[in-house]
């Protein structure tokens, strides 16, 4: 990526994120509840209720990217949490116990909301944090969708959204405003639409944008989704990408291959991976992870629509559906191969990958590799081993000829 002019929006992002944290402190001062939410959570309800949503996973990712996950984790491990747990959780719990805060202090929650569409680690982490901070914990339960979504599951989720709204009304002493919810949902959907258009530019050959860029630019779609700020940020980014494409500024000049990555990046090694792929003329073009925020809402039936979007996310789907979704990305972007990340921190996204690799290769005829590691903790990252696996993968790619499978 050497020599590529930096994104102008990078400055905007810094400003926006600083503003986000400032808003958290401001909320605290004004007595607005600061609430914890999970990344795949109907935050639209939180914004509509006028609460401030805080994303502890983001904190975990930040700690990981700044390479201090093991330091924070040590504080949790000293309390009896083992290093087998999700790294984000260990960072979050560790920071709560720590005296020093290398990435700033994790926000104390007044209420914790958690949706388990993503995993079972988040509810356990939030439950534990709820005890630590002595704050109420509310679980939005999202049973797995094995094949097609069921009425039973959808109704269960809608019921819970109503329970959650009641719960918020009791806590805030204010009636919940459904009109405001529709407005927030529209803003959220608009930001998602822009974000996905941006992600789609990775299908261009060569592409002005790839997965590692997306990892950098995704913070606002997570934290600011549902606000005007997110919409204007992604408008600006989209415009900048058009300019960059016109000026032929590419993350991988002379792009030869497009690679699908599944799922989270190895945060402390983001640069290492970006360089490794770029050196081989390979653009990591997409991942289900960055595509998680692709909500399309129907504001005429807001709760049902929230339920559909937030329960039907890929990680909550059965084996076959998840394979098919990966193949869809591979086809849509014209990938030449795929890398599946067996992430020790993240069982829900890792268990099953060994077999999925074989199925995807069989069905697409493309080479694929599973690499072992951890998204945040370098104690589980063996660079030589990863490199050796990737080298073999690239040998296969070379034999296949490259330049797209279309």
């Amino acid at each position, binding site marked *: 990526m050497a020599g590529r002019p930096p994104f102008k929006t990078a400055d905007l992002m810094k400003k926006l994120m600083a503003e986000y944290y400032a808003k958290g402190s401001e909320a605290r001062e004004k007595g607005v509840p600061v609430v914890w939410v999970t990344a795949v959570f109907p935050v639209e309800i939180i914004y509509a209720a006028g609460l401030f949503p805080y994303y502890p996973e983001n904190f975990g990712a930040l700690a990981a990217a700044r390479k201090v996950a093991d330091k924070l984790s040590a504080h949790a491990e000293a*309390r*009896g*949490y*083992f290093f*087998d*747990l*999700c790294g984000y*959780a260990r960072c979050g719990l560790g920071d709560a116990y720590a005296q020093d805060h290398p990435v700033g202090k994790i926000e104390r929650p007044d209420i914790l909301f958690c949706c*388990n569409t993503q*995993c*079972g*680690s988040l*509810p*356990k*982490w939030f*439950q*534990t944090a709820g*005890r630590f901070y002595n704050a*109420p*914990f509310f*679980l939005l*339960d999202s*049973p*797995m969708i*094995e094949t097609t979504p*069921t009425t*039973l*599951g959808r*109704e*269960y989720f809608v*019921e*819970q959204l109503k*329970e959650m709204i009641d719960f918020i009304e009791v806590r805030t002493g204010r009636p919940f405003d459904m009109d405001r919810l529709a407005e927030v949902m529209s803003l959220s959907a608009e930001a998602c639409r822009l974000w996905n258009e941006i992600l789609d530019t990775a299908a261009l050959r060569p592409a002005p944008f790839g997965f590692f860029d997306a990892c950098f630019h995704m913070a606002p779609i997570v934290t600011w989704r549902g606000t005007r700020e997110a919409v204007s940020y992604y408008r600006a980014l989209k415009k900048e990408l058009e300019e960059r494409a016109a000026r032929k500024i590419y993350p991988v000049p002379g792009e030869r291959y497009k690679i699908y990555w599944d799922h989270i990046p190895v945060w402390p090694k983001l640069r290492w991976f970006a360089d490794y792929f770029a050196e081989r003329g390979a653009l990591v073009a997409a991942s289900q992870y960055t595509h998680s925020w692709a909500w399309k809402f129907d504001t005429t039936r807001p709760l049902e629509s929230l339920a559909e979007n937030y329960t039907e996310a890929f990680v909550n789907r*059965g*084996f*076959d559906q*998840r394979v098919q979704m990966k193949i869809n990305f591979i086809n849509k972007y014209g990938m030449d191969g795929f890398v599946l990340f*067996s992430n*020790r921190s993240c*069982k*829900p996204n*890792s*268990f*099953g990958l*060994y*077999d999925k690799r074989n*199925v995807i290769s069989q069905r697409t005829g493309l080479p694929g590799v599973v690499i072992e590691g951890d998204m945040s903790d370098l104690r589980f990252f063996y660079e030589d081993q990863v490199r050796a696996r990737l080298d073999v993968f690239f040998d296969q790619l070379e034999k296949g000829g490259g330049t797209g499978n279309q």
Partner: protein
Amino acid sequence: MSLPTTPVNGKVEQILARLERVLEDPAGYVRQVKSDRRVKVIGWLLTDVPEELIHAAGALPFGITGGREGFSWADAHLQTWACSLARSCLGLGLQGKLNFLDGLVIPHTCDTTRNLGGIWKHVRPLPMMENYLLPRQVDRPSAKAYLTGELGRLKAKLEQCTRSGITAGKLQESISLYNLNRSLMRRLFARHVRDPETLGNRAIYNIIKSSMCMPKEEHNRLLIDLEQALSEGPRNTVENRHVRVALSGKVWEPPEIMDILDRGGAVVVADDLATGHRYIDADVSETGDPLDALAQRQLNRMPCGCFESGRRDRRRFLVDMVRKSGSAGIVFIHLKYCEPENFDYPDMKSACDSAGIPSVRVETELGNVSLGQLETRLQAFLEMIGGGD
């Protein structure tokens, strides 16, 4: 510490030996039952699967509680950092040892079980494979409505598989049969607590675990005979000087852990194990709509790391459990890589500390564990809480 042992009578020994034999190779045993009785067998994984439904569909429920080998079979499909219970169950399936199953029900209790079904179905499909999608919050009204619906869904799938309708009457009968089994086991457990010499920890927990894989009709008969034989046997007059301990965790694996406790002069008086009191505690109501009753039992079960309940705090539950049972301490038996347990552990431990309850945590696995180390740790703990002698 040497304790005098009372010789149990022949009949008792016979029954216990029979259960022990079943547990040596549960799959082999059930395969035999299947061929003798020409009955469909539906496997289930731990924990909380409503066996009554399977039974009412005319099939034999078979609880797969893992094995001691075959892990390498699983390695190509499931990472080694999955818990050994899941790896071992999948390993059994991959070795073909569960080929006789007509179906399998996997309860969703954690991210491991949530992913296991998909892998299993892909590599070793069985005629029926169902995920049992339990609600993970159990306090709010939505959970009840959903669970009743989910039980209805499971019921329909079972009916399809066995081609026989589950009527309310049949389900009631199954519920009564299971209630009887649970109450027999609870009675025997109470007897074990009063008189730890006669049965011993290994034997009483073998009784519970064997119940998971044997036809309940037969298990009930054996337990009734056992009670009878025990009451006819010589009365144990040796003073009960056992150290009372409670256990917490998923499974009492490796099974030798019970022998270690027996040798150490400890009597297990309470637990929250999936292969212990979670299985035998609390009956299903025999009045009212049976599906509703099954749901009700599930939502009111003792707390565990897999379900969220603000109403029933697990820390308080454990402290109460220890106090009510008069345990001198608690042993946390945790499977390596089991996230729900590990997330709960530090707070459970500090709740015990605050309540003045001594505790120890041992991390175990199915299959390869160093029994020597386990024994040393447990022995030291027992000496500490028992004052030694």
